């Protein structure tokens, strides 16, 4: 039962994380130049983005922790997965991609977004540099989410899925 609840939480948190990632990339980043031109940038930078980023990074944390717990307790083994051993290789690859994305969120996107949003002191030049770095890290995560989700959903043959590994 514990594994079912853990897996359920993993998917719930994962949807929240990746859903917000796609919102940032497919909606906010595209609409921002027009919002700035209309003089409404503060609504996004002061109210929407900080709240969305809070849900985003904590959803990433919960997704990673519940995923790691599942790997360890389900019989796959956390070490086997991360060492890409035998039949654990496909889910292990998904776990590696998810881990890189998680580290990107907490190590690159969030520290740089804090500068962009004015939550920490930064010069205009530092803000521009931080914005570009956060943008590229976010786009990298969007790119990595495609194979990550592929390996997450295909490494099990549940629900009548054909085995491809």
């Amino acid at each position, binding site marked *: 039962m514990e594994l079912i609840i853990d897996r359920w939480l993993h998917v719930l948190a994962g949807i929240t994380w990746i859903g917000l990632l796609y919102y940032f990339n497919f909606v906010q980043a595209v609409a921002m130049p027009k919002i700035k031109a209309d003089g409404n940038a503060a609504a996004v930078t002061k109210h929407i983005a900080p709240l969305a980023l809070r849900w985003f990074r904590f959803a990433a944390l919960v997704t990673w922790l519940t995923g790691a717990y599942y790997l360890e307790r389900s019989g796959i083994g956390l070490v086997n997965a991360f060492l890409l051993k035998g039949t654990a290789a496909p889910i292990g690859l998904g776990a590696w991609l998810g881990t890189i994305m998680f580290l990107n969120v907490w190590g690159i996107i969030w520290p740089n977004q804090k500068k962009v949003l004015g939550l920490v002191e930064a010069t205009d030049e530092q803000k521009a540099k931080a914005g570009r770095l956060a943008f590229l890290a976010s786009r990298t995560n969007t790119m990595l989410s495609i194979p990550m989700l*592929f390996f997450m959903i295909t490494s099990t043959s549940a629900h009548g899925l054909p085995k491809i*590994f």
Partner: protein
Amino acid sequence: MKNPLDSIVGTIISGLVLTVVLYFFTTNFLMKAALG
């Protein structure tokens, strides 16, 4: 050369290409020993 990550289409295509590459890497190298 333009960075593919600067466009949404480039990002999605890069992700799809990476998926195919990693799939063949997994089945042909990582899984070979396990599958026999």
